[in-house]
Every structure is written in structure tokens, then in C-alpha cells.
């Protein structure tokens, strides 16, 4: 099937719109001049300066710590919540529970941030890495539970029943059968929570203390003053990491799908 010129044009323009700003950003991160809008020759010096900038490195370290802890916690809690929602049956306050899980998906970040900050002040918890981790866990577990529960809904329940039937305890059935099979969804839930945490500015701004500036907070205060070549360099590094990650992940999943398909065809031929 050949594409009509209309479809081809809308795709070209659409993807140009989506990608051009980032491409420009990447190109100008290699600009020699500090005047970011004027091209003055190729240079990698801003990358060098970035690596010398202790405040960026500190912020990056804080962000990484927060992201690892909060996404891991969010994955555990989000998977539990998804399991409860899909398999838990009825219990007291189920409606409230599902409401609380999905609300953060549509909640403006300013409100989530404000309310959590007021809580932390109310209970006298000093703001720092811990409070950011708590805040990020709460809002990203919603995303994890959406990803995991959509996998659980299509999960063939007779697999769990078969495990029970063969003598596995409910915990063994989960550990040995359900978890390995839904693992891809759990992993993508973790990745999503991790990126959300890396990315978050608003909630972190509310819940961070003076000694726990995250990278987005640091970037935000820098770009408020306008475009800077260091930020361009930093952005390029972040875009590169994400791109490599996403492409690798999709290649891996594509390869395993192809292999599975080939196996199935071979099995069908064998009969």
C-alpha cells in the first residue's frame, strides 16, 4: 500500500514538529560560543564545563538516589495495589482505594506538591531526600499500578489456579507463576516511575529541603535566566541516555517477539 501525499505530509510535518526543537538543542550544545543562538564553530567545551560544575553533579546524585528509591518503592506498592484491585475481590472502602490510586494521574502537580508539603510540615518531618522519596513514591505508584493492572487483567487466571491445584500455596503461586509472567509489565512500571521521578520539578520543589536540590530544580533555576550552553549540553546527555534506553528496550522486545513467533510457526509445522 502506498501512502497518500496528505498522510505523508502530515507525518513528516508532525514528526518534524516533535523532533526539531530537540535536534536544534543537541546541535547547539556543540556550539563554541556562549551566545547560544549564534553558531561559532564546533566544540565540546560545555560538556567539560558541565562536568566541572559541582552543583550540577550534586543535584544529579540526589536525583538518582531519589529516583532509585522512589521507583522501587512505587513498584512494590503499585504492584500490590494493582493485584488488590484486579484480584482482591470486594472489601471495605474499595471505591475509596481505587479512587486514591488513580487520582494522582490527573491531579495537578502543584496541588499534590502543596498538600504533601503541608503534611510534612504538619508532622514535623524535615524536608530532604526522604520527603522527596515519599512524595515521588505516592504519585508514581499510580502509574505503576495502571501498567501492572492492565497486564493482570489479561492474565489467564487458570495459570494461578493450576499452580494452586498442583499444591502451591497462594504466595508460591504468585512468586513462581504470576510474577515471572507479569515481570515485563512490572519492569516497565519501574522504568516509568524512575523517569517520572527523574523528571519531576514541581513536586520536588515543594518537598525538597535546601540541602536536597534535585537536577530539575537546578535546571529550572538556571533556565529561568534564559538559554545557557551548559544546560544544552546537559539536555543532550539526558536525551541521549533516554533514546539509547528506549531503542534498546524496543529492540529487545521486538527480538523476543520475533523469536516467539518463529518458534510457534515451527511448532505448528511440526504437527
Amino acid at each position: 500500500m502506498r501512502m497518500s501525499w496528505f498522510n505523508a505530509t502530515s507525518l513528516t510535518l508532525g514528526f518534524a514538529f516533535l523532533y526539531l526543537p530537540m535536534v536544534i538543542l543537541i546541535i547547539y550544545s556543540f556550539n563554541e560560543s556562549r551566545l547560544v543562538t549564534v553558531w561559532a564553530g564546533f566544540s565540546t567545551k560545555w560538556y567539560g564545563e558541565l562536568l566541572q560544575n559541582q552543583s550540577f553533579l550534586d543535584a544529579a546524585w540526589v536525583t538518582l538516589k531519589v529516583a532509585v528509591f522512589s521507583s522501587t518503592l512505587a513498584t512494590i506498592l503499585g504492584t500490590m495495589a494493582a493485584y488488590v484491585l484486579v484480584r482482591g475481590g470486594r472489601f471495605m472502602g474499595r471505591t475509596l482505594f481505587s479512587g486514591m490510586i488513580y487520582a494522582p494521574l490527573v491531579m495537578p502537580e502543584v496541588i499534590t506538591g502543596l498538600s504533601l508539603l503541608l503534611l510534612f510540615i504538619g508532622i514535623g518531618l524535615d524536608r530532604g531526600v526522604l520527603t522527596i522519596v515519599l512524595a515521588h513514591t505516592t504519585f508514581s505508584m499510580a502509574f505503576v499500578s495502571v501498567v501492572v493492572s492492565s497486564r493482570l487483567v489479561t492474565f489467564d487466571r487458570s495459570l494461578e489456579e493450576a499452580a494452586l491445584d498442583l499444591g502451591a500455596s497462594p504466595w508460591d503461586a504468585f512468586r513462581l507463576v504470576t510474577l515471572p509472567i507479569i515481570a515485563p509489565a512490572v519492569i516497565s512500571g519501574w522504568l516509568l516511575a524512575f523517569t517520572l521521578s527523574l523528571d519531576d520539578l514541581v513536586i520536588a520543589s515543594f518537598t525538597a529541603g535546601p540541602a536536597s536540590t534535585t537536577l530539575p530544580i537546578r535546571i529550572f533555576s538556571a533556565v529561568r535566566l534564559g538559554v545557557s550552553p551548559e544546560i544544552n549540553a546537559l539536555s543532550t546527555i539526558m536525551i541521549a541516555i533516554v533514546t539509547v534506553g528506549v531503542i534498546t528496550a524496543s529492540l529487545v522486545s521486538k527480538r523476543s517477539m520475533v523469536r516467539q513467533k518463529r518458534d510457534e510457526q515451527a511448532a505448528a509445522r511440526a504437527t
Partner: protein
Amino acid sequence: MTLRPFLQQGRPDLPATVFAPWADPNQKPLIRFQNVTKRFGDFTAIDDLSLDIYEREFFALLGPSGCGKTTMMRMLAGFENPTSGRIELAGQDIVPVPPNKRAVNMMFQSYALFPHLTVWDNIAFGLRRDSMPKIDLQRRVEEMLKLTRLEKFARRKPHQISGGQRQRVALARSLAKAPKLLLLDEPLGALDKKLRQDTQFELMDIQEKTGTTFVIVTHDQEEAMTVASRVAVMDEGRLIQVATPADIYEAPNSVYVADFIGDVNILEGTVRATGPNRYHFTWADTGESVTAASERPFSDGQTAHLAIRPEKVQISAERPEGAENAIKGKVHDIAYLGNISTFHVRVAGERIIKAQSANTRRITNRAFTWEDDVWLSWTPTAGVVLSD
């Protein structure tokens, strides 16, 4: 005579006595349903049902979808609990026992093979839960692989084998723990017709070899008739008839069973006794009378149905000599099925009666064609008189 004892007679290693523990009052049933009722909300899936199943039986639960047969099976496995009533396994009430503690295993309709484990590990899954010593476990898995002819596929994952092989893995996995009772939920539903027939005999073989009691759920009457020692025909949560396949076919207890199993002509009319176990059946449509034998008593003038299998109706060009029941008609349609032909014969205006004859000769020599005048005849014992 059932198919099962017939098969056993052909084998010198098995006793030639007829296997019929249900007829022996000294036999204790392996499974006993006592007044079991199961409701889902307002819906009654199982309605005050009692049933005994004996050791080494191959018992089939047969019925249309939604008749409650799957619920029965899930209650035996422990995935559903009865709303009221008692279920016994070897004399013990198993209702409070969770599924993972029951000496019952199930073969799932979808097979439910664990996709992330190899065939070998799937079969070993249940044994590992019992912490079986490694040597014994290996021996048992190998034994199961051999029984189901899967030795070559032990290292493969479920998606790397064919549908028929998957079915055998599911069987091997559920038999590995040597359960007292094996439940099979539509075990052959996913296979095509040819493979299904071969597998039916394989299942019967394995059941005999292992001596396990099998309870199979199916909606396929042919399958139930082929494999089972006894068949329970179910409808709307109730047992309609529990009997050997031959009895179900030859002596159905209701129009429902007669109609559900195989092809049948059902005539409506009234009966009048003419002698011991002999009745005059007056056909409501035409007023014609035929003679029918029945062990069940009927009162004079009672409305009843006469059920006659098509293969028990003879078709001929002339009225057969000395035939007690004969009706004249016209050939309306012929269904040629290769080994047999079914004639749809129009009698008394609009009524169609089906008659079957074996094609022992080549088709060119066929005796009747469309619109031929023919005679249908049958013996008094060919039909069954049913009261409802």
C-alpha cells in the same frame, strides 16, 4: 453393554468381569455429592444435586454450556465452595480443604501451561511443591514424559510445541502427583477433529494404565460416549440422567436426554395399554396408531412421546411383510454421509421422519430418490415411550 467392558474383554490381562461398581451396593463411592447447591448471586448454578462417583471410573459430565458442569468440576478442585451441601472424597468432607491441599488435580481447558517454564519444569512443578527428593522427582518426571510420549520435548517451552503436544504436557503435569482423582475440563476442545479422536483413545489407555479416577467435563456427546464408563447428562444445574453410554442412548429417561444425545425422531401422542408392557401409541398429528413396548408403566389416555432413533427405522419400497408398525411417506430429502444415508421422509402431510440406512453398496445402486413413495417400519421395541 457399555463400550468400556467391551474393550476390556479384548484384553487378556484384564479381568473379563463387567466393570460396574455403581451397581454393587457394597462399593463405597470415591466422590459423593450430597444435596449440593451453588448460587452465584441470584443465579443457581447447581440445584440440590446428589451424585456418587466410584474409584477407577471414567465419569463424564455432559451438557450444554451454562448447565453447571464446570461448576461441579471447580467445586471438586476447590476453586468454588458449595452454598450448601457436602462433598466427600474417600469419605472425607473436602469443602473446607483449600485447592492446594487436595489430592485432586485438574487439567485445564486452556491447559494453563506455565509459559516461562520448560515442559520438564511444568511437569515437575507439582512434585516440587511436595518437596519430593530429587532422584524420585527425576524418575517420576521421566516416567510421565514416557507415558505421554514427550521425551523429545522435555527441554522446550510451551510455545515451542504443537497444540496436541501441549495437551499431553497438561495431562502429564496433572497426573504427575498421582492424584486420587483427575479432573479434565474440556480436555480435547482445542484440538481438531481427527486429533481429538486419536486422543480420546489415548486418554482411555492412560486412564486404564494409571488406574486413576477421571471426571471429564464436555459438551461433546460423542466424546462423552466414547470415553466414559458413565455419563451424567446435566441441564440447568440438575442431573437429568446418570447411566452408561449405552443406556443413555438406548433408554433415555426424558425427551431432553433423547434429543441431546444423537439424532432422534420424537412423536407426540397418547398411550393405551394393550398387554403386559405393551402399549398402543396414537400419534397426535395423524391419529395413526403404532405399537410400542415400555417397561415403564403408563395410564390409559396419558400423553407421551415416542422417541425412535433414525437407524432403527427401516425404509423400503413395499410395505414389509408382518411389520407391526409401518407408515407410508414420500422421500423429501437425502443426506448422503458416505457410510450412511439419512432419508427425510414426509409422512401425513408435513411431518418429517428420519430414517437411516447403511450404504453397503455403491451410490449408483441407491434404491430411493427424491419424491419416491416409501414405507417406514420399526419394531415395537425400537422406540422408547417417554412421559414428559
